[in-house]
Every structure is written in structure tokens, then in C-alpha cells.
């Protein structure tokens, strides 16, 4: 018997993916793929989808297993050596609580919807790429959970992240963002998540968190970041291939794709408001300011690079991009000021910036910080010194689209809250910005269903009428929320670091 012919990588890939595809003789194509026509996108030739990463399942599994092995070795040694004690400060973990509560569940949602695409796209190339991405997203959800679970033994805020993702007010922001994407058609999802989230905005989301981890002694999260990096670059390529494929298939696709870019840029940008305050306020050791990150990862890389390339297809920069650029000097301050006042109802702590931190903020934001925001912190500090740390006393008005409290200001007027509204079927709906109003007005039937945490609390759907009722329903435990100074976490951290005979950290009860 002749020896089997050895195939090249390219041939192997073709044999194991495209060549396994077949045309149906027993069922109509429209019946087999029922979801790829209703959005108005026209695809003439699915074989034109280029696969930049010619991965086969066996190669994929081998790479991922190697990365997992390295990550879990780091997690084990970090846990065994009480590595958490060498973090910059326990306060740093507030950023990771937000990540676990807000981002990890999105990885799982992405896994689910990419696996839907892996079944429902007509072409074998994009189906296989979606299958790989679906597996990546599941692995990311799992490895993030395992990476951060070590901290759950010693610190508050990590124990009920999944439960909280579905219930807590600020987590309705990422949750509703992704619900919007997964309830759209497959092509909009590809632009929403594959392109806008995984390409346009991914560096602004992941680099700050992973660099923050590295600057603040969080070796496990940093290692997770490296382990996810090669997947993320594959996802970016998928997103870029998706948009080019749609634009090249038919000129009628261009205006549809443009509207999706306009919508999902703004949706994603509003979601990143949480990242902006994380960079400027939550990290004890600073990486870069939000303004700097936005200029580098968005203005230079995306507006200066990507959109120049997309011009060829007739695509222009996102509709409300100028508003985002104008907000870079004020965004993080407005967001953290709000979280500071509402952290009694959050699964993380906030605190007044110290003088060194105020100085850094003034240097990073010379045109806005000392004039607009320092006076607020000075007043807050005076109240703290007088024993009256203040919290908000009422629930906030929310934006119907992004679900963030109405904390953003009028373009060009940083002391007046921006108020927009639309009347739909006789009912008033409020928005934080022209971008969010425009998104609602395109598809009001979608956003009138929004589960707005404040409105649901007032309807009695969140555990009861009082603050303790709602916090119990959120799954908050003592020590999870409120002011950081004097918190159990701050006291533990100080005790673990002050004497050489400090008690070894013992796991937090109930976690």
C-alpha cells in the first residue's frame, strides 16, 4: 500500500473545512439557513470569505491547551505563595470586580452567539471561523473566572458576579449592550461584536485592564491577558474580514453596514465609560489616562488608520464620533463622581482621591480637572473629615438606550446635564445624548422593552421597597460595597501588611 500523501497546511485546512461542506439536495437552502436574508444584506458568493488563520480543529486544540497549561501553572503558584499580598493595594481589585461582573458574562454570551453563527451562516469559511471564536469566548469566560476566583477567598465583591450581572443597576449597562447584539440578526451581530467591539474598541477595553493588572502586581490577570491575546488578534481579523466581505458582496450592503457602525460605535463607546473611570480613578498605580488611551487606541489607530482604509468602500467614521472626542476631557470624572455617590449599591468600593491622585488628575486633564472636578472632591473631602461621607439619596434618571444614569453633559457645556427625549406611542423616553436618542429612534420597538433598574425597583420587582431589600436581592454582602476607607477590605489589607507576625489571611466567610 502506498504511503498516504502528506498534505500541506493549506490543503489540510481546505480538506478539513471547506471540503467538508456540501449542497443540500433534500432541503431548500432558505430553510436550512433561515436567518441570513431578513436583515437586507445581500451575499452572492460565500466562497469569497477569506480565512486569514487557516486553523484546523486539532491545531486549535493544541495551541489552546498549551496556553491553558501555562496560565494554570501561574494561577497555582500565585495562590500557593499568597501572591495577592503583593498587589499594589487591595483597592486595585475594584477594577477586577468590575471586570468579572461586567465583562466575563459577556464572553459567555459571545460564546453562545458565535456558536449560533457557526451553525447559521451559509458559508463554511465564516462558519468555521465563528466556531473557533465561540470556543475562544467560552475559554475566556472560564479562564477569567478561574483567574479571579483566587481573590474571592480573601476579598469582597467577587462572590456573586453572575447573579449580579442580571440584577445590579450598573451591570445592566453591559448586559443590555450584549442583549441588544444577540437579539439582532447574524450580520448585525458580526458588525456589533465581531467588528465594533472586537476590532474598533477592543484595545480600549482590554489593554487598560491588562496593563492595569501588570502595573499593579496582578500576575494572574496579566497572564490571562497574554493567554487571550492571540485569540483576540484572530477575533480582530474575523471582524475586519466580516466587514470587508459584507461591503464587497453588494453595494446595497454599504448603507446598512454604515448604520450598524454608527449604532455600535456609540453603544460600545458608552459602555467604555466604565473603563474610563477605571483607568483614571480605580487603579492605584496608573497606566495612562483615559484621554491618552482614547487618543492612542481610538483616534490614532482607528480614525487615523482603519477608517482611512474603509473609505475605499464608501464607509465614513461613526456618526457621533465627534461627541466622543469632545468628551475625552470630562468623561471619566463624571462617571466616577457618580459611582462614588452610588457605591453603597455596588459590588465594589469607591473612595476620595488622595492628594497625589488629585495632582495626577490635574496634570492629565489640565483644561478641566482643577476648574470643574477638584472643587467637588474638595467639598467631598471636607464632608468626610466632618464624618459625613455623602452618598446619593435618590435613584437616578436613566438613559433608555445605554441605561447609564443621566450624568453626561451637553456638548460644549460641562455643567449642564444633557437631556434628550422622544415621544413614542404617547410615552416619553429619555436619553443621555444625541447618539442614544438616534439609536432609539431607529428601532423604538426594541428599546421600549428595556429593563431599566430604577423603573423596576419602583415597580417592586427587585426584592422590595427599601434599600436593604434591593441590596439583598442584588446579592450584596457586608464588605462588598460603599466607602473603601475603613472597609473590612482596607482593615484586612493593613493588618496583613503592618506586622511581621500578622495573621495569615483566612478566607472570607460566606464566599
Amino acid at each position, binding site marked *: 500500500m502506498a504511503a498516504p500523501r502528506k498534505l500541506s497546511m493549506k490543503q489540510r485546512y481546505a480538506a478539513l473545512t471547506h471540503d467538508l461542506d456540501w449542497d443540500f439536495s433534500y432541503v431548500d437552502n432558505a430553510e436550512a439557513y433561515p436567518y441570513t436574508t431578513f436583515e437586507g444584506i445581500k451575499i452572492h458568493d460565500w466562497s469569497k470569505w477569506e480565512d486569514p488563520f487557516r486553523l484546523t480543529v486539532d491545531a486549535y486544540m493544541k495551541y489552546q491547551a498549551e496556553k491553558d497549561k501555562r496560565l494554570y501553572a501561574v494561577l497555582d503558584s500565585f495562590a500557593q505563595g499568597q501572591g495577592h499580598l503583593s498587589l499594589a493595594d487591595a483597592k486595585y481589585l475594584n477594577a477586577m470586580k468590575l471586570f468579572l461582573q461586567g465583562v466575563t458574562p459577556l464572553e459567555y454570551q459571545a460564546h453562545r452567539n458565535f456558536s449560533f453563527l457557526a451553525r447559521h451562516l451559509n458559508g463554511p469559511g465564516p462558519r468555521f471561523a465563528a466556531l473557533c471564536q465561540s470556543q475562544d469566548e467560552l475559554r475566556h469566560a472560564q479562564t477569567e473566572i478561574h483567574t479571579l476566583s483566587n481573590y474571592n477567598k480573601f476579598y469582597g465583591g467577587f462572590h456573586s458576579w453572575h447573579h449580579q450581572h442580571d440584577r445590579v443597576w450598573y451591570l445592566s449597562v453591559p448586559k443590555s449592550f450584549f442583549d441588544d447584539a444577540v437579539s439582532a440578526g447574524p450580520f448585525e451581530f458580526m458588525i456589533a461584536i465581531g467588528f465594533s467591539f472586537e476590532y474598533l474598541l477592543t484595545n480600549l477595553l482590554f489593554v487598560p485592564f491588562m496593563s492595569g493588572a501588570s502595573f499593579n502586581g496582578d500576575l494572574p490577570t496579566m497572564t490571562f491577558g497574554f493567554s487571550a491575546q492571540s485569540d483576540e488578534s484572530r477575533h480582530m481579523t474575523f471582524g475586519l474580514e466580516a466587514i470587508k466581505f459584507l461591503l464587497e458582496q453588494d453595494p446595497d450592503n454599504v448603507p446598512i453596514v454604515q448604520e450598524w457602525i454608527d449604532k455600535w460605535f456609540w453603544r460600545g463607546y458608552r459602555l467604555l465609560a466604565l473603563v474610563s473611570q477605571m483607568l483614571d480613578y480605580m487603579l492605584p498605580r496608573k497606566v495612562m489616562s483615559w484621554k491618552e488611551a482614547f487618543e492612542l487606541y481610538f483616534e490614532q489607530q482607528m480614525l487615523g488608520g482603519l477608517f482611512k482604509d474603509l473609505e475605499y468602500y464608501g464607509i465614513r467614521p461613526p456618526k457621533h464620533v465627534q461627541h466622543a472626542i469632545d468628551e475625552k476631557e470630562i468623561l471619566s470624572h463624571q462617571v466616577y463622581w457618580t459611582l462614588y455617590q452610588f457605591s453603597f449599591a455596588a459590588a465594589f468600593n469607591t473612595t476620595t482621591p488622595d492628594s497625589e491622585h488629585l495632582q495626577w488628575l490635574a496634570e492629565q486633564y489640565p483644561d478641566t480637572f482643577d476648574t470643574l472636578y477638584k472643587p467637588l472632591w474638595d467639598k467631598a473631602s471636607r464632608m468626610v473629615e466632618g464624618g459625613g461621607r455623602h452618598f446619593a439619596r435618590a435613584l437616578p434618571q436613566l438613559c433608555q438606550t445605554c441605561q447609564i*444614569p443621566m450624568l453626561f453633559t451637553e456638548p460644549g457645556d460641562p455643567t449642564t446635564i444633557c437631556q434628550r427625549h422622544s415621544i413614542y406611542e404617547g410615552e416619553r423616553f429619555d436619553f443621555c445624548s444625541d447618539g442614544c436618542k438616534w439609536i432609539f429612534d431607529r428601532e423604538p*420597538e426594541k428599546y421600549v422593552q428595556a429593563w431599566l433598574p430604577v423603573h423596576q425597583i419602583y415597580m417592586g420587582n427587585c426584592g422590595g421597597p427599601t434599600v436593604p431589600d434591593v441590596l439583598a436581592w442584588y446579592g450584596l454582602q457586608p464588605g462588598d460595597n460603599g466607602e473603601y476607607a475603613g472597609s473590612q477590605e482596607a482593615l484586612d489589607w493593613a493588618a496583613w501588611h503592618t506586622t511581621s507576625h500578622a495573621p495569615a489571611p483566612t478566607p472570607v466567610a460566606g464566599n
Partner: protein
Amino acid sequence: MAVRAIGEYKFPSSSRQELYGDDQLVHVYWKHNMFICAPSCFRVPKAMPWSAFLSEVVYPVWGQDPDFDPATAQFAWEVDDASISPSGDQSLESLGIGHKSLIVANAA
């Protein structure tokens, strides 16, 4: 523009007034007071008198700001972009304040 969907796409609002019985949601914003980070949302009876609304609902919340003194506070009021001159015994409903109306306070 309608949602492009695989079937009929029609759902009621999750915040519609009827879900609150005789009450409604109202939003209150103290303009230019940056100390209070965002306008507030309240659930209140439509028939609530304006004076009770201020003294029992709004002013206790604004007491978060140590510089606020309800005894001396003077505001010019707007409802949904129109000026109003409320008297204390008028109900919210009679002042034209509807479900999710925006009440803006301009400090005098």
C-alpha cells in the same frame, strides 16, 4: 424605521405608566448643581400637592449637598421645557407633570 425581524416585532413598554397604578415616575434636575451627580427619578402619586412633593420628596434628597438650605432655597421651575409658577396646593397632574416628565430647578 421598524426593527428588521424574522416575524412580527411588537412589545409593550416595560416602563409604561399603567404599571405604576395611580403613581407616575418623575425626573427632577437641579440645573448646574454638579455636586448632585445626576437628575433623580421618583415614583409619586399624580395627585400629590406640589408643596408636599418638594418638602417630602425632593428637598430631603437635595440635602445631600451641605450647602443646600430648604428654608431659603429659591428656584424658578420648568416642566418639560416650559416655565411653571406652581402654588403649593396644586397637584403634580394639574401642573402638567406627566409620567417621566422632567422638572428642572433653576436656582434664583
